[in-house]
């Protein structure tokens, strides 16, 4: 099987699994929504203040929800030792990583778009005014987060304290993504000009490329027995 066809097979397999249970997207959305509600009470903000901190609120909700998604992605492979079966399958091992990553990306983006829609209704702040740029920030920010998250999920699934160690290992590493994605979204929501904002996009893209390369190099070594 070629690289991309095996990636496609893995993506299809995981999406079918998700469509049957709909576990991840629903829990993601609900969890992120709860985070937003808690923030609303914790900070007690006026409409103007919400506009100023909307990007931060949303991204924190995404990151928390995302760390749950990451944990799930290799967990169900652990049941019945499916991961070993995947390793035995005659396909390029990095295609497993890429497949898992794409699935996580699709699930996260779906959840994010739903959360943003709910956010707009609940808080009456249109965060998607500059739609395509905001979409770019979501895409590149989430990709960076997921590239690292999927790699770390492959590690933490084999550990005793898997639920807690995944986020613990992931959050310090994705700090550049947190900073750049929040600043970029924030600039877009609060009407800053694009000249100043390109730098953030550059960081996000650089992070994505560097970590994709590192992860692809490392993943094969990580899973081989």
């Amino acid at each position, binding site marked *: 099987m070629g690289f991309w066809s095996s990636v496609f097979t893995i993506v299809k397999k995981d999406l079918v699994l998700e469509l049957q249970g709909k576990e991840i997207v629903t829990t993601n959305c609900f969890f992120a929504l709860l985070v937003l509600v808690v923030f609303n009470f914790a900070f007690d903000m006026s409409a103007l203040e919400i506009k100023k901190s909307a990007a931060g609120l949303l991204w924190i909700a995404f990151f928390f929800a995302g760390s749950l998604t990451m944990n799930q992605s290799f967990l169900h492979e652990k049941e019945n030792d499916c991961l070993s079966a995947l390793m035995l399958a005659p396909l390029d091992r990095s295609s497993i990583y890429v497949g898992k990553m794409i699935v996580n990306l699709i699930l996260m983006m779906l959840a994010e778009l739903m959360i943003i829609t709910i956010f707009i209704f609940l808080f009456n702040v249109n965060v998607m005014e500059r739609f395509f740029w905001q979409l770019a920030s979501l895409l590149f920010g989430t990709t960076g987060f997921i590239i690292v998250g999927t790699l770390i999920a492959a590690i933490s699934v*084999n550990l005793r304290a898997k639920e807690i160690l995944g986020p613990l*290992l992931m959050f310090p*590493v994705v700090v*550049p993504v947190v900073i750049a994605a929040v*600043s970029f979204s924030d600039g877009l929501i609060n009407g800053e000009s694009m000249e100043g904002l390109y730098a953030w996009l550059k960081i996000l893209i650089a*992070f994505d490329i560097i970590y994709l390369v590192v992860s692809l190099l490392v993943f094969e070594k*990580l899973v081989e027995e």
Partner: protein
Amino acid sequence: MRFIEKYLSTITLVMTAIAIILVTASIYLIFMVAPLEKVMGFPQKIFYYHVPIAITCYLSLFICFVASCMFLWKGNLKWDGVAASGAEIGVILATLMLISGMLWGKPVWGTYWTWDPRLTTSFILWLIFLSYFILRSQPNNEVLRAKYSAVIGIIGFVDVPLVHWSVKLWSRGIHPVIDIDRDSTGIHPEMLTALKVSFAAILVIFILIFSIRVRYSFLKSELQNGIEHSQVE
């Protein structure tokens, strides 16, 4: 290699003696010879140890990064021992760097902590390598532990420039930078001598501790292998 092993205790002893001499000399130079800084006054003396510790810390974590790469490439567990040693000493040095920086910051900046790019980068690096140790405490299998920690050692160190780049854009720094090349406006020559001697002192102490720590991890794995062998027999 055998020569080094034979005379290791002597080498360690000599290195310790050199370290003691250098530390004593640097303390003398810092407090007796180097002039008092005009604006900052006495707290500036922390700088003579803060800077060498910071540089040695990055060196140590870089060793961890290289050894992690080597482990994933070659699969020899000895590299894991080197990586763990580098990370361990790196974290200790990072802690010292953060503490000494905070002690300096309080009288000079009026606050222990500010989210300046350099401070934030060091802090994030410290967090990453702390998580490295939490990870190391987890798997019981030696090879798995080595693999996992090598991955974190690599992605953690690769993160440093990215963190620095993003934090630099995010906030303007107030951390001082000293330009040693310009002799007129830079640093007083006696201050520079004190800095060089304390740098040598920290470096010798680092090499000393690092070699002892690496030897410890080698001996430990040899011992474990020996125990496993005797159990098999």
